[in-house]
Every structure is written in C-alpha cells, then in structure tokens.
C-alpha cells in the first residue's frame, strides 16, 4: 500500500516534469494494480470535487479521502483484521479515549434522544449541512433501534432496554462511553463511526446520548 502510493506519485511527478497534464489518457491504467488505479482515480484523475466547501475550519474536502492507519488496515482486510492487527487496533483505540474526569455522570436523556435521532451533519455538496444553522447530530438511529416509538436501522444491534439490561454501575458506563468514543476499542474494524476520537461528538454530547441509553426515565428503558 505504502509503496503503491509512492509509485503513483512518482508517475505523476514524471508527468508533471514533462509538462503534461495528468489526464486519464496520459497514463496506462492497465499497468497499475487495482489499488494503484483506485488511488489514482481518486486523487489524480479528479474523481471527487476536492474544492467543495467543508464544515471544519482549516480542513479540506480532499482530507476526507486520505486514509488513516485504521482505515487502511480495515480496508485491506475487509474488516477482518488478523488477531495481531486486531490487538493493535483495539490498543490504539483504547489509547485514544479521553474519559471524563472522575465518575461518569449521565447527561440529559432528552437531549441525547434528539442527538441519537439526528442524521444532520458533515454532508457536503450538493446539499451542504451548514453547522452554523444547526448543530450536527449523532446518527445512531441509522444503524440502531432504541425504542418502539420510531424505527431505527439494523446495521448495528438493537439497543432497546440497554440500561435496564446492564445496570448503571461505573464499569458498565465506562465501557459504553468507550464504545461510543471509539468502538474499535471493543470491536476492531467495526462499521460504527468513531464519534469521540474523530471529534464528531463532545464529551457532554456523549454523556447525553448515554443518558438516553441508561437513564431509567428514558424511553429506551421503558418498554
């Protein structure tokens, strides 16, 4: 993977030196590996609009396509890391988690419910999510079912009665906080987004979402 990048980059540099614009016609796709060609189509052949506006100050649209180490390993293994890779991933993920100081105190389940049910945020053109108008949500309901009042997705397991089934002891809360912060700590190469580690949710927001899961008054535990 690493030397793939270098080779493609070298090819592009050569083209640039020759004064040629690196369009599709200038390079022989059949001489590349599928991985090389995929990287080329994304980064050199202008497959995505890299000048698109993004929500995060100082970041670019292109940054979103650059893979970090975890994304690379999970891509290469199609989400089935070897035991060694899995151990490395979960260790790094545990390392990434910033726990609240002191005991974990549940937030406001009503706010948490709103967050869990909101799919707003981080989408780009052609229908840009303006975070100045409305704060991004947490997207949980796309993949999880929480309660009987609204149909959630099934990509992840059902979270109905989550708190009722597990109680609210500190170790239980700490585990759940870790999963929401960076689920790879428990499930290496999971499809669940890294809500805390990627800065998608603040500590306070995670505690609100957790209240939705654990508060005895939350509809999640009222069935």
């Amino acid at each position: 993977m690493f030397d793939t990048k270098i080779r493609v980059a070298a090819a592009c540099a050569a083209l640039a030196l020759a004064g040629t614009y690196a369009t599709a016609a200038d390079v022989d796709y059949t001489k590349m590996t599928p991985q090389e060609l995929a990287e080329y189509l994304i980064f050199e052949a202008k497959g995505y609009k890299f000048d698109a506006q993004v929500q995060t100050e100082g970041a670019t649209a292109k940054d979103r396509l650059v893979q970090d180490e975890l994304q690379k390993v999970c891509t290469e293994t199609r989400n089935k890391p070897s035991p060694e890779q899995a151990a490395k991933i979960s260790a790094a993920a545990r390392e990434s988690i910033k726990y609240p100081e002191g005991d974990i105190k549940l937030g406001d389940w009503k706010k948490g419910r709103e967050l869990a049910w909101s799919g707003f945020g981080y989408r780009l053109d052609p229908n840009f999510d303006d975070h100045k108008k409305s704060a991004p949500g947490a997207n949980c309901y796309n993949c999880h079912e929480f309660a009987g009042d609204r149909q959630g997705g099934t990509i992840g397991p059902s979270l109905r009665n989550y708190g009722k089934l597990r109680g609210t002891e500190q170790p239980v809360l700490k585990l759940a906080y870790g999963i929401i912060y960076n689920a790879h700590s428990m499930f290496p190469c999971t499809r669940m987004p890294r809500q805390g580690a990627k800065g998608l949710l603040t500590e306070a927001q995670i505690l609100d979402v957790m209240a939705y899961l654990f508060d005895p008054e939350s509809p999640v535990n009222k069935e």
Partner: protein
Amino acid sequence: MLRKLLVAVPLAAAMAGPASAGPSDDPAAVLQALIDSTSSYYLTQSEQNLMMMPDNPALWSLEEGEALFKTPRGPKNVSLEGCDFGKGPGVLEGAYVELPRYFKDTGKVMDLGNRLIHCMKTLQGFPADDPAVKEIHGSKSDHMKLQTYIAAQSNGMPWNPPMDHPLEKAMRDAGEVVFYRRSGPFDFNCAACHGEPGKRVRASVLPYAQDPKEWTKAISWPAFRVGQDNTRSSQHRLRECIWQMRYPPIVAGSDLSIALLSYWTELARGQPAIIPDMKR
C-alpha cells in the same frame, strides 16, 4: 405505448437468460419473476412499487426520449440514430446491459451518459456547454429522456458487461477497491451499508451487493424516484450515496464513477435488468 416500445426482446436473451428472466416486454413482469424466485427482504418489499409500475412516470421520459433520439438536432442537424453504444451504430437492443464498456474511438471505458455526451458532441456538433450536453439530472433534461429510452431497450436482458479489453477489467477491479475503501469522517465504505443481507438504514431496506437478484433491482436505472418526483440515473444514485457517506461530491462521468459503475454492474451479472424501474 409501453408495449410498442419495449416489445423488441431478442429470443436468444430470453432463452439463454437465467431462470428468473420472465416475459421481458414489461419491467413489472421482470420484477415479478425476480420476486417469485427469492425470499429477499429488499425485493419482496416492492409490492407497492409493482402496483404503481404500469403508470410509471418514467414511461413519459422514455417516450420523450424516443422522439429526441430520432429527431435531427444540433449544429449538424442529425439524429442520434448513428450513435454507436457498443453494438454498432444505431443498435440499442441489449446495448445498455453491456455498459460500461471500452470504446475504440475514444480509447476509454464509458457509461451510457458519457457515450451520449460523446455522440452529442461529435455526431450532432453540440458544444460542451450546451444544456443538452451539460444538464444530466432531472426528468426535464434531455439526458434523462434519452437514457431512459436507450436503457429500456435492454429491459429483461441479463447484465453482461464485457471484460474482453484489459481496460474494462482494470476499471472493474479498481471499482471493487473503491467499493471497499474506508475513509471520511465516519469511516464509511459502500459495504458499510450494502455488505450484509437484510439490513436497514432507518426504515429503508438496503440492497445487498453480493446478492445478484437484489443487486439487479438496485442498479436498474433509469428509474422514477417517487420521493423525488423525477426520473434518475445511476450517476445520480451514486452521488446520493456518496453524499450520505460524507465524502466530497463525486464527479459524474469521471473515471472514478465509471470504475464504480463497472464493478456494480459486474455484481448483477446474469440477472435481468428492470428498466424503467420505480424506487422509493
């Protein structure tokens, strides 16, 4: 109207096709045969869809597309009947189920949209910035009308993208890599939502990419999107999923988009196209 336009189905395809390919003059019959052959959640939720298909508004796109196709247009005042979609100039029957494919005259692997643009420019003489060439989305665009007409001439035929040219294979294989490539703020790839059977995002049942019978319905575009009140293309569906993934917008017609379409067509190989289809 529908019958007249769609009647032309080669016997060969009907006989050589998979068991699920039923009478092929009517997209609803093709879908019904698929449903009858599987217990797939994604397909069997289509009851309502089926009931609406005789009045599919995409049939208007189809009809308008036929007229546009046959009318001499552009600075050179010729029709598109001389356009080669891969099976020879003017041959539309079965052309769409064999796209994307490699075209010698451009040296590129092209999908239907790119091929249409090519013929509008070279054959009809339209400049690149003419609305006929440039506007590719929406029932009102020439593109959607023409694409619906052309693609419908493959209704009921099995997807069969050619893999004879090395570029066709290269694009398909790169498309597979992109399909599984995780990135973006949510770490998504296409398989995050289409990598397991019988899953839902909220209330939407997701097609599973590795089940060709589900996947043929998923990739059967143009289709009328009821929720959007418009006839839509493959490129439009791709754009929507990419948007949900929090990626930058994909460039329609880019080689990246063609690679993804090459792989997604491969995944439905052998199963009959349903065109025009209807979707939520």
